């Protein structure tokens, strides 16, 4: 367009605007004459909304989100090569990267520059180290921490999927699905608490759900880094930060009353936040809602949540209410207790609103309700002497116990699980919560004498997805999951000693000549070693995010059976030679949803294996 023509367009545009709309077209028709292009040009400009593009309504803002510098794809330092920016959040930017050393995908999280000063940096490093010591299948694994171009970063495992928020958005989930998904996360949180690490920022955005439906709790302890508020000024500062452009929006909803009022927090604050999360997942609405964050703070501190739907089992409603008690002393006192209750609920076959405790009025509540639930569900541990392992299975394809001789070992209130029998068949080791915490107990069959081996020292013994106790090859020790290590405790008493670092599921071959275990790192590498744990050799590693659990030796000492693809649709029993090589899938019959097939031997090893479903919990 020539300047002359543009001048003409401009003049006509303004002249037309000066006229009212009736006279406008008449004026333009006359002014443009035969020049229909000119008319069209002016009319198309006049047709635009006088406000102009939305973007121009006010001067450019939100400079920060545009300006924060981006690390280019292909940038490499150490073993890490940046692939792509996945997104930015309040705490920094997240990239997908490759760890070229191990050729695996990782997530790199650059913390925002708040952490630039040296004391913050030290704190970050220390917190990251603590978080990386957390070794749990439902906690996002921290691989590394460091500094690149003056910015602090964390390397974590890469989870390809969405968040709990996305998961809840896609469809309305039945209570069982919600609890099954979150009980593992709850267990992860319990493990962290046992290591004196608080999360402090539990919310759906911090729970990642892999495509295979496996949930992981992320950003452990990082929330603390954001906390630069002196304790006495906390209330005021929180109030201020909220009025300031809602920096805390979305988080207040999950705060405990003590957190919201700026008081000191402990594990019970996380328990409250987890309760909020569970409530929201079950009810698809938050327990505390308000129009503004300041009002929300008030509701969190003083308000009572509306009752959960009666279709949700009463036990579960009570559990959530207990977690949401305003008074920390009235809540669950440990995450572990919460987990135990959730697992009990999952084990209840009847999901209708608990007729068994209908006499306990909901408001006579909580503690009493939980005690009743415990008594009703209390299990008895039964050992069939001719069996090596007896899982807590209540579901068999074909009952291999037909004709077996049963001998009752325990008759305790509460729960006993994960029993194993010593090689000579004389002793049984199992987990039980008789003493309040889950401990490893041993007994000589028929003696009626029990010994509590662990006496509350190892909360890591309660774990959903691995065996956590068993006998050593010579039967003199029981092994214990003492996160992050495996330890040995003498059967007859004596000091507990560390045996393997960062390992899970140690199993000795039937001839006692070798030990198999797997590391709790990405892909669960399966290792073979001498019986004393020396000369380890990796025979298999899976892709990150896939799990290999419940290792079981074949009778002939030649191969190892294991459950692969834990909790995915592909979950099945696989076999790998103890000398390595390609694993082979042993297809099992359809496994009911939520159950985990675990390999286990029957008396007659003719069929080689017998996969029984094991309900998580």
């Amino acid at each position, binding site marked *: *367009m020539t300047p002359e023509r543009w001048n003409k367009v401009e003049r006509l545009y303004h002249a037309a605007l000066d006229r009212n709309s009736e006279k406008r077209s008449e004026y333009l028709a006359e002014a443009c004459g035969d020049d229909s292009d000119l008319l069209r040009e002016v009319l198309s*400009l006049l047709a635009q909304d006088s406000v102009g593009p939305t973007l*121009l309504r006010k001067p450019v803002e*939100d400079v920060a989100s*545009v*300006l924060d510098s981006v690390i280019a794809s292909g940038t490499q330092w150490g073993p890490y090569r940046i692939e792509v*920016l996945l997104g930015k*959040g309040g705490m920094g930017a997240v990239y997908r990267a490759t760890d070229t050393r191990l050729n695996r995908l990782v997530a790199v999280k650059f913390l925002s520059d708040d952490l630039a000063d040296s004391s913050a940096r030290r704190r970050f490093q220390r917190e990251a180290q603590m978080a990386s010591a957390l070794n749990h299948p439902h906690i996002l694994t921290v691989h590394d921490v460091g500094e690149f171009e003056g910015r602090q970063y964390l390397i974590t495992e890469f989870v390809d999927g969405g968040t709990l*928020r996305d998961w809840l958005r896609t469809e309305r989930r039945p209570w069982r699905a919600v609890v099954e998904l979150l009980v593992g996360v709850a267990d992860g949180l319990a493990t962290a608490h046992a290591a004196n690490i608080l999360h402090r920022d539990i919310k759906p955005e911090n729970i990642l759900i892999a495509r295979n439906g496996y949930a992981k709790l992320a950003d452990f302890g990082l929330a603390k880094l954001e906390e630069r508020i002196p304790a006495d000024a906390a209330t005021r500062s929180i109030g201020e930060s909220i009025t300031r452009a809602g920096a805390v929006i979305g988080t207040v909803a999950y705060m405990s009353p003590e957190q919201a009022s700026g008081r000191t927090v402990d594990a019970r604050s996380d328990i409250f936040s987890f309760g909020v999360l569970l409530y929201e997942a079950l009810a698809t609405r938050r327990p505390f809602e308000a129009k503004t964050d300041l009002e929300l703070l008030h509701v969190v501190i003083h308000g009572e949540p509306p009752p959960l739907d009666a279709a949700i089992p009463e036990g579960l409603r009570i559990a959530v209410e207990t977690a949401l008690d305003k008074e920390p002393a009235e809540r669950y006192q440990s995450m572990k207790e919460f987990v135990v209750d959730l697992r009990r609920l999952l084990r209840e076959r009847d999901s209708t609103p608990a007729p068994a405790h209908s006499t306990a009025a909901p408001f006579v509540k909580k503690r009493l309700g939980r005690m009743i639930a415990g008594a009703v569900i209390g299990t008895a541990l039964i050992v069939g002497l001719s069996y090596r392992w007896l899982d807590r299975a209540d579901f068999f394809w074909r009952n291999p116990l037909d004709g077996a001789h049963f001998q009752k070992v325990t008759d305790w209130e509460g729960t006993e699980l994960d029993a194993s029998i010593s090689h000579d068949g004389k002793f049984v080791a199992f987990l039980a919560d008789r003493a309040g915490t889950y401990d490893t107990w041993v007994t000589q069959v028929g003696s009626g004498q029990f010994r509590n081996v662990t006496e509350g020292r190892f909360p890591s013994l309660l774990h959903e997805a691995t065996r956590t106790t068993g006998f050593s090859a010579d039967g003199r020790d029981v092994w214990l999951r003492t996160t992050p290590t495996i330890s040995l405790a003498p059967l007859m008493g004596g000091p507990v000693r560390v045996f393997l670092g960062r390992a899970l599921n140690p199993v000795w071959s039937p001839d006692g000549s070798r030990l198999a275990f797997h590391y709790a790192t990405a892909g669960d590498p399966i290792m073979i070693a001498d019986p004393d744990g020396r000369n380890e050799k990796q025979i298999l590693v899976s892709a990150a995010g896939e799990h290999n659990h419940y290792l079981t030796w074949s009778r002939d000492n030649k191969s190892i059976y294991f459950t692969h693809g834990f909790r995915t649709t592909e979950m099945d029993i696989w076999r790998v030679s103890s000398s390595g090589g390609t694993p082979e899938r042993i297809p099992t019959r359809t496994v009911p949803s939520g159950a985990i097939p675990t390999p286990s031997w029957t008396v007659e090893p003719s069929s080689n294996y017998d996969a029984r479903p094991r309900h998580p919990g």
Partner: protein
Amino acid sequence: MAEITKLLKAWSEGEQAALDRLTPLVYEELRKVARRRMRTERLGHTLQTTALVNEVYLRLVDASDVRWQDRAHFFAVSASMMRRILLDGARARATAKRGGGEIRVTLSDDLVPFRKHDELIALDDALMSLAKIDPRKSRVVELRYFGGLTVEETAEVLKLSPQSVMRDWRLAKAWLSRELTEGDAVDS
């Protein structure tokens, strides 16, 4: 500080060479302040360009010794700089996004949507097209949008009457609206 004040005066009095010396000083300071502000304020909290430019102004210029006209000139320099800084950032992020497909992984908060950057890039492209036809109108938009200048300040910087700025602003918005919604301009 004194030097900047002097350069501003010289430029508003018509000395173009002063602008060339002013630009890099302002650019550096803007970047520095923006970075520092982003450090102390969380994302999700918007950082307005006017607030940013004001802060840089206060840091660089002795306000007691400066007429409001000179202040307008300072903001005018800043507007171009802000545009450059913002667009560099937006383009870098858009490139990162194109490399990344549709994967979304959140490690902490909901992500800042990428859409904003695409919009900003589209606006910048449209402004460049407009500058070919009518540089003054493009400049009016730059000053108003990227510098947060008022009509009066824009008029001062461009040595126009406020009425002319209003008219330019109105037509520019209509032209940009059409350009941005229809994708291509009617060009004859």
